């Protein structure tokens, strides 16, 4: 089976704008899911509201397209009630970090066995380009017409601090790395969080001097710095330049988790719940 068999062909074409990065992230995710050898009937995609959250509607599994910000809470119900299902959440920066921030934190804290893929386009795309909790300072949006004056969230730092077992960040430029990261996330028990920085030419790029889609993707590439490089520089006492975002595997650990599969129940270690 190849990953395009995971698409719901009769729902295409999709609603995404020309040049949108979300399709890249969905492709990478489905490629990783396909490599897991999971059966479609054992896999559930859950999402909230926004561009990213439309993804489950294009995938030919059971899927739950829920209310704004609440995907992780719904997914928690699905996973806890039937731990044999593989549950993957698609979300975006507004859905996850603004209205859904509390559920994100508690999903990480519970370390429930979900994989959450966040398409971070640093803007509210579906409603036409309002500032989000990840809009960089100085950037223009329809609700920050004079430049954003708030400090953005670092979603990965948040996930690590809150307790997620696996955290990584890549961009729509780093497709191979992203696919691999999602796969590790799917394999890792507990809460896996993969942040994918994506271009949004319609709502973000056109207001922020990215005349071509490729300009924005190039920006994402040029402003990412490998975790290994940051570690090397920090170790050598060098100053890491500002304005960059760290990409790579940012956390991988084995804390007790919630939502163990039924078969694993009998061998569950103390501290593991199912």
């Amino acid at each position, binding site marked *: 089976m190849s990953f395009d068999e995971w698409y*719901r062909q009769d*729902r295409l074409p999709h609603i995404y704008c020309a040049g949108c990065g979300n399709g890249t992230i969905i492709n990478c995710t489905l490629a990783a899911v396909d490599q897991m050898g999971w059966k*479609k*009937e*054992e896999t*559930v995609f*859950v999402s909230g509201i926004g561009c990213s959250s439309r993804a*489950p*509607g294009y995938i*030919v*599994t*059971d*899927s*739950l*397209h*829920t*209310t704004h910000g*609440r995907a992780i*809470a*719904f*997914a*928690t*119900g*699905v*996973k*806890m*009630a*039937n731990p*044999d*299902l593989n549950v993957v959440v698609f979300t975006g920066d507004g859905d996850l970090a603004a209205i859904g921030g*509390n*559920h994100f*934190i*508690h999903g990480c804290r519970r370390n429930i066995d979900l994989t959450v893929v966040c398409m971070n386009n640093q803007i509210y795309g579906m409603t036409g380009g309002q500032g989000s909790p990840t809009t960089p300072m100085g950037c223009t949006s329809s609700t920050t017409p004079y430049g954003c004056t708030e400090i953005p969230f670092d979603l990965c730092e948040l996930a690590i601090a809150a307790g997620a077992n696996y955290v990584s960040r890549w961009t729509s430029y780093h497709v191979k790395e992203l696919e691999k990261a999602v796969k590790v996330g799917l394999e890792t028990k507990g809460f896996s969080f993969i942040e994918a920085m994506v271009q949004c030419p319609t709502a973000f790029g056109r207001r922020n001097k990215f005349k071509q889609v490729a300009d924005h993707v190039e920006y994402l590439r040029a402003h990412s710095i490998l975790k290994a490089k940051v570690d090397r520089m920090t170790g050598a006492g060098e100053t890491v330049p500002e304005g960059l975002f760290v990409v790579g595997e940012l956390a991988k650990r084995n804390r007790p988790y919630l939502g163990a599969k039924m078969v694993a129940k009998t061998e569950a270690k103390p501290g593991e719940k199912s």
Partner: protein
Amino acid sequence: MTRTEFWQGNTACAEGALAAGCNFFGGYPITPSTEVAEHMASELPKRNGVFIQMEDEIASMASIIGASWTGARAMTATSGPGFSLMMENIGFAAMTETPCVVVNVQRGGPSTGQPTMAAQGDMLQARFGSHGDYSIIALCPATVQEMYEMTVKAFNLADTYRVPVFLMADEVVGHMREKIIIPDAVERVPRRELARGTLPFHTGGDLAPGFPQFGRGYSVHVTGLTHDERGYPAATNPKLHAALVQRLVDKIELARDTIADYDIINPDAEDLFIAYGAPVRTVQQVMHDRPKEKIGFLRLRTVWPFPEKALSLFKNAKRVLVPEMNLGQMAREFERHTKVSVISIPKLGGELHTPDELVAVLEAR
């Protein structure tokens, strides 16, 4: 063998849920409903069920909807402030036709109000609280026995009609202890599974579609967007939206006679009480104290959809007296269905009406 217990209403509710096969509870602590969650936390793990304390009531409601799609009989319990937070996802459950049970042990509002005192102030919120048009079912227990029985019933109705069902209790009934007879077994109406080869939101004559449970290969897409029979978004199709919302309302409203649950006492009386929940007990006391008078009583267990046919059975009624622990929320609804004068007997403050308070209205002819 049945057995007799002396239980608190909230315990009876939790035990009723367990008897009905509830295997998932997602909740958040709130007075005066917390004992329901505590009892489920203690009992569900022993029965391979799942109890999870969520981060708030928004998440609680979300979790039971998610659980329900895996086939679980799922429930949450809350009170006014939590009920308010649940409203958006209650609308999602109505739109996606997700069976679930929400217990609201009502307390005095608005806002934080009276956490430890009783009220019936959420009766209209239960019916209309989420945005858009939809219908739900709401039951009102007046005794500890009914906390048990009507929780069972709530699950059966939720699965039959694929709708959120509310058990609209109150602090009096939730916290009072009284004798309860536990049956050996209770009736469990199974959720009807979707016939293979049928579109997931295609309905026949009964207006409620079969259920395509997650994990069984139905490949169902569930969305809160206006959707077609395939479950696919069709949010800009005016006719489809109108037909979908009309069906969501009709499947409950056209079944109101089937869903109806009430007692009728002295149907030829001129003075008629209508009550639901804790005020039922005061009306019963008044009738007990005045055995020679013919006092009519329509005692509602199903409040939404309102069984208006029951009102028409009181042919000689000249006055309808409605004691409620709110400012006349349901009295307005009853007024719509009768030409007889409806007299609201509101009571705020958290205490039951006294018999004297009802007698005063009864005698003020």
